C-alpha cells in the first residue's frame, strides 16, 4: 500500500527525508527544503535588501542547488538581491574544465551574469603543474589557499558586497572533526560561524546559506528538480586527510541520522579557555591580503613554488619568513628540508 505524504496527506510519498525520517511527496519536500534555507537566511540576517551577491559556483551539486534556491527565494520573498555567479578555474584537466561547462550552462539557465577567474592568470600556476612539483599529498593545501584568494579577487572585480558558498551541513561537520583531529583550536572556534566577519577592504564577507542542509537532501533536491550538475570528485581527492573525516561522518550518519546536526551543535557550543594563544589578524607585507603572519599563506606557497621549494608552505618555517621577505638566499640545510619528497 503506498504511503501518504506525512506533510500534506494528499499525495503519495515519493521520498524519505534523511534529516527527519518523514516520508513526503516531491512538492512538500521542495517546499520544506526551500523554507529551511529561507529560515536560515532570515534568522541569521545574511543579506540586506539591494545587495550584490556573488554565488560561488563550481558546477557541482551544492553550488547548483544554491544558485537555484537563491533565485527562487529571491523572487518568492522579494529579497531584492542582485545575484551573479562567480567561478574559479584551478586548471585540473578532466575535472575542472568539465565542471566549468556546467557552470556556463547554469548561467544560461538561470540568466545570471558569470565571471570566471583562473589560477593561471592570478598566480601563474595551474593545479596540474603544482601537483607535478608537490606530489600527491599536501596539494589540497595549495588549492584551498589559492581558491580563497581567487574568490575574493573575483568578488572585488565583480564589485559584489557578499559571497555565498554552497557549504552544506556535512561539510561543516567534517570541518569541525578535522580541526579537532589536527588540534587547530583557532579554526575550531570560527568554523561553525555561518558568515565571516567583514573586516578589511581586501576581504569580502562570505556566508553559507546551506549550512543546515544535509548533503543527501541536496542531492535529492537536485535529482527531483532535474537540475544540471557535474558529479565527479576531484581526481586528487582520494589522498586527502579530509577523506578520513568524511568516511567517519558517513558511518555516523548511518548509525544515527541526526549526528551531523549534533556535531554542528557541539561545534557551536565549544568554548576555548582563556589564555590559549590565538592568531592575531594583520595584513600581508607583500600583497596586502589579510594574514596572521608577516606573509600571507598564498605568498609563501607561491614563493615556494617559484623557487622550486614546494615544502615551503607545508612544514614549519615561520622563522624563515624574514629571510624570504628580504629575498636572502637560504642555507643548504634549509633548502634540503624544503625540497619535495619526490625530487
Amino acid at each position, binding site marked *: 500500500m503506498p504511503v501518504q505524504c*506525512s*506533510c*500534506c*496527506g494528499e499525495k503519495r510519498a515519493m521520498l524519505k*527525508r534523511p*534529516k*527527519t525520517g*518523514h516520508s*513526503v511527496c516531491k512538492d*512538500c519536500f*521542495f*517546499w*520544506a527544503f526551500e*523554507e*529551511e534555507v529561507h*529560515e*536560515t537566511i*532570515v*534568522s*541569521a540576517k545574511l543579506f540586506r535588501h539591494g545587495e550584490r551577491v556573488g554565488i560561488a559556483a563550481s558546477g557541482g551539486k551544492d553550488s547548483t542547488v544554491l544558485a537555484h534556491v537563491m533565485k527562487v527565494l529571491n523572487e518568492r*520573498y522579494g529579497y531584492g538581491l542582485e545575484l551573479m555567479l562567480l567561478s574559479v578555474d584551478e586548471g585540473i584537466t578532466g575535472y575542472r574544465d568539465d565542471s566549468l561547462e556546467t557552470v556556463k550552462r547554469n548561467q544560461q539557465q538561470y540568466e545570471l551574469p558569470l565571471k570566471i577567474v583562473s589560477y593561471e592568470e592570478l598566480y601563474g600556476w595551474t593545479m596540474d603543474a603544482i601537483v607535478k612539483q608537490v606530489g600527491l*599529498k*599536501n596539494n589540497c593545501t595549495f588549492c584551498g589557499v589559492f581558491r580563497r584568494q581567487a574568490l575574493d579577487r573575483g568578488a572585488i572585480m565583480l564589485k559584489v558586497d557578499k559571497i555565498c558558498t554552497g557549504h552544506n551541513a556535512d561539510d561543516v561537520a567534517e570541518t*569541525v*572533526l578535522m580541526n*579537532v*583531529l*589536527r*588540534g587547530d*583550536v583557532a579554526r*575550531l572556534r570560527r568554523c561553525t560561524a*555561518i558568515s565571516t566577519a567583514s573586516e578589511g577592504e581586501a576581504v569580502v564577507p562570505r556566508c553559507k546559506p546551506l549550512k*543546515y542542509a544535509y548533503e543527501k537532501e541536496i542531492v535529492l533536491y537536485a535529482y527531483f528538480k532535474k537540475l544540471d550538475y557535474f558529479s565527479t570528485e576531484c581526481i586528487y581527492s582520494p589522498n586527502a*586527510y579530509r577523506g*578520513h573525516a568524511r568516511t*567517519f561522518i558517513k*558511518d*555516523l550518519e*548511518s*548509525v*544515527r541520522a*541526526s*549526528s551531523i*546536526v*549534533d*556535531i*554542528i*551543535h*557541539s*561545534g557551536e*557550543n*565549544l*568554548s*576555548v*579557555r*582563556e589564555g*590559549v594563544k590565538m592568531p592575531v589578524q594583520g595584513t600581508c607585507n607583500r600583497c596586502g591580503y589579510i594574514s596572521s603572519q608577516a606573509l600571507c599563506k598564498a605568498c609563501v606557497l607561491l614563493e615556494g613554488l617559484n623557487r622550486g621549494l614546494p615544502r615551503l608552505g607545508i*612544514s*614549519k618555517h615561520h622563522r624563515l619568513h624574514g629571510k624570504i621577505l628580504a629575498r636572502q638566499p637560504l642555507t643548504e640545510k634549509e633548502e634540503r628540508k624544503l625540497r619535495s*619528497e619526490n625530487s
Partner: protein
Amino acid sequence: MCEINEDFHDRLECVQDVEGGLKKCVKCKEANASVVIKGGDAHCRACFKENFTHKFRATLGKNRVIFPGEKVLLAVSGGPSSCSMLRQVQEGLSQNAHKKLRFLPGIVYIDEGGAVFRSSEERQKTVAQLQAIFKATGYPFHIVPLEQVLDLPSSTILTAPSASQPAHTGAYKTAVDQFIQHEISSSAAREVQEETDVYESQEPHTQALQKLIGSAKTLTAKQDLVNTLRQHVLVHTARSKGYSKVMLGDSCTRLAVKLLSNISTGRGAHLAQDTGFSDTRHGDVILVRPMRDYSAKEIAYYNHVFAVPSVFIPGLDTKNADKASIHRLTESFVNKLQADFPSTVSTIYRTSEKLQTVCGSSSTADPCDRCLLCVCALDTADDGVSALQATLTSEKLSKFRGNTRPGMPVLISGELRQSAPTVRDCRSGEGENCGQAQVGGSCCSSDMKPEKTDLKSTLCYSCQLIVKDLSSVECLPQYILSEAMRRQRRSLMRKEINTFVFA
C-alpha cells in the same frame, strides 16, 4: 600531515638499530632498551617505570586538587587502566616512597552485570576475583551493583555546594605543611578501618534494571544511559561514605575516543567537564582523572611487565560490529587513524586541554539550569540561528500541515520558533486548562503520567537524544522522574510570577 604544525617525515624507530644489536636506553644510556612507546625513544624497564610513576605524581601535584588527609574514592572497573591506577596509588602511598602521597583511599567497583545480561554465577565469579585483588591492597572497598540506581535519592542529581576548600595556591602548601606537622606529632600507629560492603543484588531489581536498559532502542542510547547511571551511583556512593574526591581511570586513548564521540552526540558544550582533569559538576564530589596522560599502550606494557592483575569484564559493546553504536564506531576510527598517524591521540588530547565549560560551573546556580541526567549546564538556549533551531524548524515543517498548499509562504520566521512546553493542559476537564495553581504549584490532576515532552525542557541537547530513543520514560528510576516533575512545577510557578521577580 594531521597536525597543522607537524613536520612528520621521519620514519619511526625500532628497538633494534641498523646493525641488529639492541639499542641503549636514551635516558640512562646504560641498560638495554626494551620498549618504544612514542616518538621513537627507546627506554629500558627501569627508566620506563620511573617515568610512569613520575607522571602519576606530576599530574596529581600539578593540579593540586587533592589535599592531604582527604578521603579519595578509586573507581575501579577491573580493566587495565583502573587497575594500573590502583597500583600507582598503592606505590605512591607506601612508606618507602620518595615524597609519598598523602590521602586516604577507598575502592569502589560497580557491578554492571545486570545491565549486560550476565548470569549471577558469572557476576559472583568476577566479584570474587576482584575482591581478592582489593583485599590484597588493604584499603576499604565497596562493591555496589548497578541495580542500586533504582533506590537512589533525588539529591544525587542535584549539585551540592562544595566543602569549603581554599582556592588560592598558597593554601595548598600550608595544608601540606600542617599535615606533615600533625603526622610527626601523632606517633601512634593509625588503625585502618576495614569498612567493606558487598551488596548483593536482588532478582526483581535486576529485572527492573534490564527493563530500563531494554527500553533504549539503540545501542548508543543504551551505552549513554548506563554511563549516566553509573556516574550517579558513583557520586551517591562517594557522598554517603564521606568521600570528597573520586579518581577515574580513563586513559588518554579512552579520553580521545570519548571526546570525539561526545562531539558526535552533541555534547560540545560540556567537553571540558567530560574529558578534563577535574569534573566539578556535582559540587561537593569532584571527579579527577589522573591517568589521562597515559596511552593505552603504555598501560598495557606496564601491566604486562610489572604484573598488575586485572579482570576482563565484557561490556555492552563487546564483540559488536563497528557500526553498532557511535562509541564503537569512534573507537575503531581513532584506532585506525592512530595506526597511520601516530600523533592522533595526543593531538586530540591537547585539543581537549584547551577547552573550557561554556557556563561557569558555580555551585550556586539554580538547579533548574542544569540537565536532569548529566548535571551539566543546559545548552538549549534559544538564541537566533543555531543547529538546535534548525532541527526544530525541520521538525515543524515536516509535520502534518493539513490543507495548506505548498508554495504559499504561510510561516513567518517569528512563528517558527517552537516554544518550550510551558503550561501543560490539565487532563481533568474536557481538555481545557484548569488554570489552578495550588500552593505546591501543581496542577489539580494528581496522577499525571510522565511523558517524553515533559522531560525535554529539563535535559541538555544530548540527553534529549537519549530520551528520544527510549520507548517509554516510565522505566526511568523514581528519583529522576520525581525531580523532573518538581522542576516542571517550579518553572510553572516561575512563569506565573515572572513579572514580579527581579533578575
